[in-house]
């Protein structure tokens, strides 16, 4: 499967090192499920997996949010409107928004992890009456490093979504919580028996978040995390992305804790 050249429509700088690209999708009837990713190819530099951060109900746009951390992401975030990049996908599993309807939903994320969860949040908000309490808990490094700050503000204004934000390092102006994202869990309103949780962020943050949710009584089959592993083929052929007995590109990136059964806590997996 070869990358399809796609034109970049616009580039928005979200944070110092993080950009959102609005890309013309590879085909007219393009679509994706929340949580899926594409392989984005910066011609002559390389190809990397990037989650889709756009609205799943708007197939006319392929929106992806990229943090520049190395050669390929540097190249992808240096593009200008009108430039072409290569796209393969969408690939991978998705946040089970339908399967968890009827109960409370906790969406817990940190840093750039909000980007892969944004499509799930938009999908849930578009079908809000199908869920009980929905709570978004978001942790960022500092008040100046909140991703999608305007949208967070808009979501905070809604009566049907609880949004709690914490930062690791406060400043004099910040009046909100300071501390790790797990400290917000006890402030959320949910019934563990009917609650599902979607978790995405740095692996260490996800580990402690999941431990805390398990302690609160949410069962492993209702805990979902997005696992990130280095990828090459993206289609289950090369084994580059192996995590325990799964290939993250195919069975993941969204896996339940029941599927991971301990692999999360095993080193070098």
């Amino acid at each position, binding site marked *: 499967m070869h990358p399809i050249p796609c034109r970049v429509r616009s580039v928005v700088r979200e944070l110092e*090192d993080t950009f959102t690209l609005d890309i013309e999708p590879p085909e007219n009837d393009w679509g994706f499920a929340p949580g899926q990713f594409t392989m984005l190819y910066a011609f002559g530099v390389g190809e990397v997996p990037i989650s889709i951060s756009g609205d799943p109900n708007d197939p006319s746009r392929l929106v992806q949010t990229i*943090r*520049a*951390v*190395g050669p390929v992401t540097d190249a992808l975030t240096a593009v200008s409107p009108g430039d072409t990049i290569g796209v393969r996908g969408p690939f991978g599993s998705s946040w089970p928004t339908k399967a968890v309807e009827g109960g409370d939903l906790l969406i817990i994320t*940190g*840093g*750039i992890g909000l980007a892969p969860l944004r499509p799930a949040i938009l999908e849930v908000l578009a079908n809000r009456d199908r869920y009980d309490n929905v709570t978004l808990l978001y*942790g*960022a*490094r500092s008040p100046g*490093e909140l991703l999608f700050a305007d949208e967070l503000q808009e979501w905070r204004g809604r009566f049907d979504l609880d949004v709690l934000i*914490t930062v*690791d*390092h*406060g*400043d*004099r102006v*910040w*009046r*909100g*919580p*300071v*501390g*790790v994202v*797990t*400290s917000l869990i*006890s*402030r959320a309103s949910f019934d563990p028996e009917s609650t599902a949780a979607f978790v995405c*962020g*740095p692996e*260490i*943050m996800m580990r*402690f978040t999941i431990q805390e949710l398990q302690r609160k009584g949410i069962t492993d089959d209702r805990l979902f995390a997005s696992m990130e592993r280095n990828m090459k083929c993206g289609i289950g052929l090369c084994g580059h992305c192996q995590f325990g007995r799964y290939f993250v590109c195919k069975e993941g990136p969204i896996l339940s804790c029941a599927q991971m059964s301990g692999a999360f806590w095993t080193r070098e997996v």
Partner: protein
Amino acid sequence: MSEVFDLIVDHPFFAGMTRDQIKVVSETGTVVSYHEGQTIFTEGTDAVGPLLILSGDVALEMQTPGHGPQVILTLHSGDFLGWSWLYPPYRWTYDAHVHSNAEAIRFDGPGLKEASEVDPALGYELMKRFTEMLVNRMQSIRIQLLDVYSTPR
């Protein structure tokens, strides 16, 4: 039973303790109110006892040379504040400032310690709870120190 007893008897911190033990603890407590912007205590002053926050938000701050006060943690309804009263030299190691109007129960540290000496079973129950809180806070601070959201370059 007292107002303080009624406020703490169902608090998760005291889950598993007998009503008699909770009564003894409640007798050392007083309900207090703080207004936004008020300083509850400052670094280096006598740590007289822990506070259980009933409502409102409290920021723990450390003064740093050149950068002024840095918020290291905020505490909210249901959180306990302070363990410096347990260990010598019994002085607070940070400032506590009220971010939004707060109500709390202020417990008398020496009173709690005395009750624990008289009834070691009560002392053990309290120690288990305060050390668990301490371990959880330390774990959180470790994660904050790892700076997990920074750019991995």
